[in-house]
Structures are given as structure tokens and as C-alpha cells.
């Protein structure tokens, strides 16, 4: 093969490759993340005063609906917080009705499949069941998948990570087209708050490594692997103390709020303020801002604030 032949072949193959990527849009790195985020009317939508599902529908309407994030034929991974074996009224897990509404919307937007999972802290079957999330997801037509074994995870590099340079990530999440993160806002014993970034600890196998190797840094590092396409923060019932598991309903404050954003750092910064913290005071938010993971300066953002 001479040089000319080589260049010609190279050009043909790379052309075919990009054609494949753009038409099918199934390559996770290029496909879903290249959505119309830049064209979105708002960087962050915050709603207060309604029920969780009402507020969610209102916020999504402002952003143009789920169709802006999910295209027909795509597979969608929805990651709530379903980590604890406690009932929904204790608000340690994401509101099950909210998760169900998201699953329904993804399916009506034409998703080929919608699955939900969490690498739980308490026993997985009891947590799935008693959080009410498993039943809600099934009722909405989604799949609640097991994540209790190492075989469901695959090692991936975290490029640019300072402490976390690789992680075993839930394999079906790696293969999914769209990633929707649905944390619940809570106080957290060790990281002060747990919101969207902290919720991603539930998609990896070995959490102990994070705890052993500068927890805040690892939480920020992991965002370099893959940022969710959409973050929806449930702040209807908010655990203000004794988090993340809580000991009773006395730990809760009914804030009746909900936030939506594609910027994982912006939504964490805004949510942290709801709990009365300055974003810069939270280790992983400060580090994430340094690393350019998102925008921590809320005054630079176009925020839609709504009341119901």
C-alpha cells in the first residue's frame, strides 16, 4: 500500500465511521451527549409549592419536554436514590411517583427501553421493594434491574481523574444512550450534602475505594467519566439532619421543591443552597468547579424560578 492509497482508505473509513455515529447516534460518547443542550432555554429550572410529579411536569415543559433529551429508539438509564430499606415517607430514597413519571415520559418520547437501578447500601431486594421504587418503575413500564453483583460492572478509565483513575461502572449504564440522574436532596454525614454528584456513587461497584482515597475528590473525579444528560433533584421532602439514612420523620423538612438541569454542578450548587450551604463550602462542589465539571456560579446562569 502506498501513501496515497493509505490516505484515501483512511478518508473513506473515517467518513463511514462518522456517518455511522451521526445516523445511529448510539455511541454513548458522541450520541446522546451532543443533544441540543446549548440551545436550551434555561440552564436550570427550579419549581416550588407543588407535588413532586406536578413540579416535574412543569419544569420539563419549560425545557421543551422529555423529547429534548430522549430520541426515539434510544435506551435510557434512570438512576434514582434507592439505597435504603426505608419507606417513602422517610424520604431517604427518591420519591417513587417521580421516578415513575420520568420512566413514562421517556417511553412516550420513544425510548426503546428504560431501566432503573441502584447499587444499594442496605439489602438490595428490601431496598427496591420498601422504597416503593421497584413497583413504581414496573407500573410505569420500565425495568428495575439488579445491581447487587460485581458481574454487572465493568472497569472503565476515568480520564483526568486526580485520585479516581478508573472505576467499575454498571455495565448497562455504560451501554445506555441517555443517562438521567434523579437524586433526592439530603443532609449527608460525611459529605455534608448528597445531591446529583454524590448520587453517582450508586453506579460503581467499589465505593470503599472512594472512602479510602479522598471521598470529595473521587466524587468530583467520577464526573469526568460521564455526566448525566439530565439531573432532576427531588427536594419535596428534604432530610436536613441524620442523613443519608435518617432515623425518623423528624429529620425531614417539607420544602416542596424540585430542580432540573443538565449541569450537574449547577444543580448541586443550587440544591446545597436550599439546605443553607454555600456551594464553595462543600468539598466536592469546590473541587468540581476547579476541575471545570460545571458552573458553580449561579449568577452566571439563566435560571427559571417557578412557583405553583
Amino acid at each position, binding site marked *: 500500500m502506498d501513501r496515497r492509497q493509505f490516505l484515501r482508505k483512511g478518508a473513506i473509513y473515517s467518513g463511514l465511521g462518522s456517518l455511522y455515529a451521526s445516523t445511529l447516534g448510539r455511541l454513548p460518547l458522541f450520541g446522546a451527549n451532543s443533544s441540543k443542550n446549548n440551545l436550551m432555554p434555561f440552564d436550570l429550572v427550579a419549581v416550588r409549592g407543588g407535588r413532586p410529579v406536578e413540579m416535574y411536569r412543569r419544569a420539563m415543559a419549560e425545557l421543551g419536554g422529555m423529547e429534548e433529551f430522549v430520541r426515539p429508539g434510544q435506551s435510557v438509564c434512570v438512576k434514582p436514590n434507592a439505597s435504603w430499606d426505608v419507606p417513602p415517607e422517610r424520604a431517604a430514597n427518591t420519591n417513587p411517583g417521580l421516578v415513575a413519571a420520568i420512566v413514562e415520559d421517556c417511553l412516550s418520547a420513544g425510548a426503546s*427501553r428504560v431501566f432503573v437501578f441502584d447499587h444499594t447500601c442496605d439489602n438490595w*431486594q*428490601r431496598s427496591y421493594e*420498601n422504597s416503593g421504587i421497584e413497583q413504581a418503575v414496573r407500573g410505569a413500564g420500565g425495568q428495575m434491574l439488579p445491581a447487587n453483583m460485581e458481574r454487572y460492572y465493568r472497569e472503565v478509565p476515568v480520564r483526568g481523574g486526580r485520585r479516581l483513575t478508573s472505576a467499575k461502572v454498571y455495565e448497562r449504564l455504560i451501554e445506555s444512550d441517555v443517562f438521567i440522574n434523579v437524586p433526592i436532596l439530603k443532609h449527608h*454525614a460525611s459529605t455534608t450534602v448528597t445531591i446529583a454528584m454524590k448520587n453517582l456513587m450508586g453506579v460503581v461497584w467499589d465505593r470503599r475505594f472512594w472512602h479510602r482515597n479522598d471521598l470529595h475528590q473521587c466524587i468530583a473525579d467520577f464526573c469526568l467519566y460521564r455526566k448525566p444528560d439530565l439531573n432532576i433533584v427531588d427536594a419535596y421532602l428534604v432530610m436536613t439532619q441524620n442523613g443519608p*439514612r435518617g432515623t425518623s420523620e*423528624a429529620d425531614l423538612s*417539607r*420544602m416542596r421543591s424540585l430542580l432540573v438541569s443538565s449541569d450537574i454542578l449547577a444543580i448541586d450548587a443550587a440544591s446545597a443552597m436550599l439546605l443553607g450551604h454555600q456551594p464553595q463550602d462543600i468539598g466536592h462542589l469546590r473541587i468540581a468547579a476547579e476541575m471545570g465539571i460545571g458552573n458553580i456560579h449561579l449568577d452566571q446562569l439563566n435560571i427559571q424560578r417557578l412557583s405553583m
Partner: protein
Amino acid sequence: MPLYHLRKIRILVSLVFFVAILFVFLGIALPLIAPLGDGLLQLQLFPSVLRMLALSFGTAATGFVLVILLTLLFGRVYCSSICPMGTLQDMITALSRQFRKRKTQRFRYTSNRKNLLRYSILAATVLLWAGGSLFLLNLLDPYANFGKFSVSLFHPATIWINNTLAFTLERFDVFAVAPMSMHALPLDVVAVSVGLFAVVGTMAAWRGRLFCNTICPAGSALGLLAGHSVYRIGFHEQACTHCGKCERVCKAECLDSRAKKVDQSRCINCFNCFASCPNQGLYYELRKKSGPVRQPANSDKGKRQFLLTLAGGLASIPMGLKFAAARQGHAVLAGRQQRRHLHHRGGAGSIPIDSQLPVTPPGSLSHSHFTSHCIACYLCVSTCPTKVIVPSFFTFGLEGFMQPRLDFHRSFCNYDCVRCTEVCPTGAITHQTPGQKRLIQTGVVRFQVESCIVVADRTDCGACSEHCPTKAVQMVPYRDGLFIPRLTPSLCVGCGACEFACPTEPYKAIYVNGRTVHQPARPVEDDEGPREEVPDEFPF
């Protein structure tokens, strides 16, 4: 009803018991079979005795009384139908006979009743028990061993089949079967189980119910009673033609067709003889109606031997008790007692834990209650959803041989779960509602501050507090904006979530020290509901 139907009825009843009890062990919760299995477990002989003692008689004695009445009425039907180990042996016998020549398939009456062996084992078991050690009972009881086989052999096999099915279906995007995690059991426990299985299996394949009539303490105990049973098997003088067909199918080897005698103490009432007799030469009738029963001349010898050994041994009880009391003092987990100066290099997880008392399941009241009532059947081990209960070997010394404990390196006890208290057939773990269980302190949290990540590495961690259901471990400001655990031991239930979650290696910075006597834990206050705090304006 013709007597030859009895065999079919026996097979049916024994299969119901076997399947129902096996399914409880395997965690297969089918609608009708699951409650049936829980109920049938109450009829196991030695567990029912332990249960009666543990719960101070009353309704707890029901199972025991039923078994005794049944035996006094019908003989050792317990051994043929109720005992799952008996049915397991029958299966092995039947299977092994598929591979034998016709002639060697036959059983033969044996006059050697091995009474000395049988009753010595029974006497030794009872004596050790009275002296405070369940060593022999836990090693020899048929139900306990059926449990050991289930947990060490049948349960892993079930998990493997379940997971093969689950993973195959997953490829087709079907998630109807939930995968189960396989947890390794301690090697010594598996070795004992496999060894016992080999012994029982070999004996069953070789000579039917030989185990039941030589080693099994339950078989020997019931054999003593069976001699007095109301209904019993015997030969009709006229109808019997000495054909010997009954003798050839008698897996207890207790039918002497030549002398037309039945050794009642060994007969397990399998009723094979009735099904084999072409002439209706055997009866199963009220003792009185059938006149004086022919008994072997030395039938009382076994009983005398047993009583003699028992009496002799009673003298040694005080010594045994002393021994048991001495063991109680140092039920300390082995293997974690390395000397400090050898391992102390500084840094997270570098400080060995001096001594750590084992934690027994919630509802087990105290180490002494637990060790004196647990028969080591491992039903709690196999049904525990978090798999925190694991068999041990000598953790509780000789008197608590092979009894399980909670292992927080593997998992932790779910705050709201009471499964083990529901299944325990011996009363070693007493029944608890979730509300009661949340107020039991099985152990107390301890913290090695120098071993903690926060102190050693100066980074946040808090995994312990995160998992703590009562906030007995809470994170409080330390320095440089970091948070460090602070303990409120009165709130601790001893669930071990903190110890499990602690990421330090090789030693945990936070761990649970078992309580030898369980204490009440302080309740978590939860009278107020959530506060209403809808923001007037967003703070951003």
C-alpha cells in the same frame, strides 16, 4: 384398609415433610409450602426439647408432646416420616440400589443390635448437654445435620441453578429471576458437613437405616419409647410362611422372619414389610388385642445400659458445668489477637483489634442462652437476607460447637429484618417483632480513633455514620472542616453496619463488640413529623 397401603402413605407424608423443610432451608417461599414448612419444623425432636427449655414450656412444648405421643402410639414413625434426614437416607438407599446386583440389594436381619454403642452415644450426648455443652448434639442430631447439608451443599447448588437461569434469561432482557449472591462458608464448617454427609451417605447406601440405629441420638431415644408403643408390628403365627420377603426389604434390619420376631427399638415403621408380604402374615395392631408380644429375651438390656451410663455420668456434671463456665469467660474471636507492636506501622486501619466478643443474633438474649439452645442447624444462616449470620467453629467454645454468629466483615444486620427470629426452631433466637428488635442491643460500637481515615489521611469519609440506622455513630466537626465519628453507645443496636462500611485495612477503625447479655437500646425519638418549610423565595 389393607396394610400394604401404609407404605405409600408413609412415602407421601415423608416427602411432604422433606420438601417443606428443605424449601425453608433453600429460601423457596411457595404460597402453601412455606407456612407448612415453618409449622413442620416444630416437630423435630431435639429442637422441640430445646425450644421447650428455652421458652419455659407452655405452648412451646406442643411439638415435643406431639412427637412423644406419636411415638408412644405408633412407634418410630418420626424416623420414617418426620425426620428429613431419614428421608434423605431413604433416597440415598434407593439410589444406591439402582447400581447394585439384585442379590446384594437385599437387607438381612442382624441380631447385633449395637446397644452398647447406641446408648453410650445417647448417654454421652445427654450428659454433655446437661453439663452445658451441645457439642455432641450439634454434631449428631439428624435435623441439625440435615441443616448443615442444606446450607453447605444443597443451598449453594440451588444458588448456582438459580443464577444460571437468571443470567441466561437476562441475555434475553428478562429479569423475572433475581440473582442470588454466593457466600463462601468457613472451610472447617464445610469440611465437617461434607464429612458427615459422607458418613451418613455411605451407611445409608451400605445398610439402610444403620445410622439411625447406631449413631443417631434421636433414633436411640425414640427406640427406648417405641418398645412401649400401643400399635406395633408383629408376625401372625399362622399366616406367616417364613418366606423372608419382609426381611429383605427391612432397611432397619430388625425383622427376624425365621424367629418371627420384630425388634421394636430398631423398627422405624417404614411399613415396607407390609407391602412385601404376599400372605398378610404381619399385623400392625393394638398391643392388647394381639395378646402377649414376643420380645427378644434381652430387650430390657439396652434400657438398663442407658440408665446405668446416665446415672454414672450424672456424677460428672458438676465438672462439666465448671468447664462450661470457664469457656464462657473467653469466647473471644480467634485470629485477631496479633500483638500490637508487630503490626503498628501507623496510618488508617493499622491498629489491630485487641479482643472482640462475638455478636449473636437479635432475640438470642445472651451468649449463654444462645449457646445452650442452638443446635447449629443453620436455618438462620440460610434464610438471613443479608447473609450476616455465618457458621462458626469454636467461637463459642466446645459448649457452643459450630453455632453461628454475626460476621460484620461480610455484611450487616438489616435494621428492620426479623427473619432469623421467625425461623429458629429451638428458641435459641426468640421471636421478635421489628419494633422489639430495634430496641435490642446485641453489641456496642467501639472506635479506634488513630485507625480512622479522617485522622490518618486527613480526608472525609463517614461511611460508618452513613450506614448507621440509629445515629449511634454521628459525624461531628473535627478540624480543617473535616468530620469525625462520635459515638452514642446507648443508641447502638450492634447491627455492624459501621464495621462493614469502614474502609480501613487490614483492621477496621470502628467495630462492634458483642454483648454477652443483650441489653435494651435507647429508642430513636420520632414523635414529630416533617416540618413545613417551603421557601418563600429560592435562595439562589
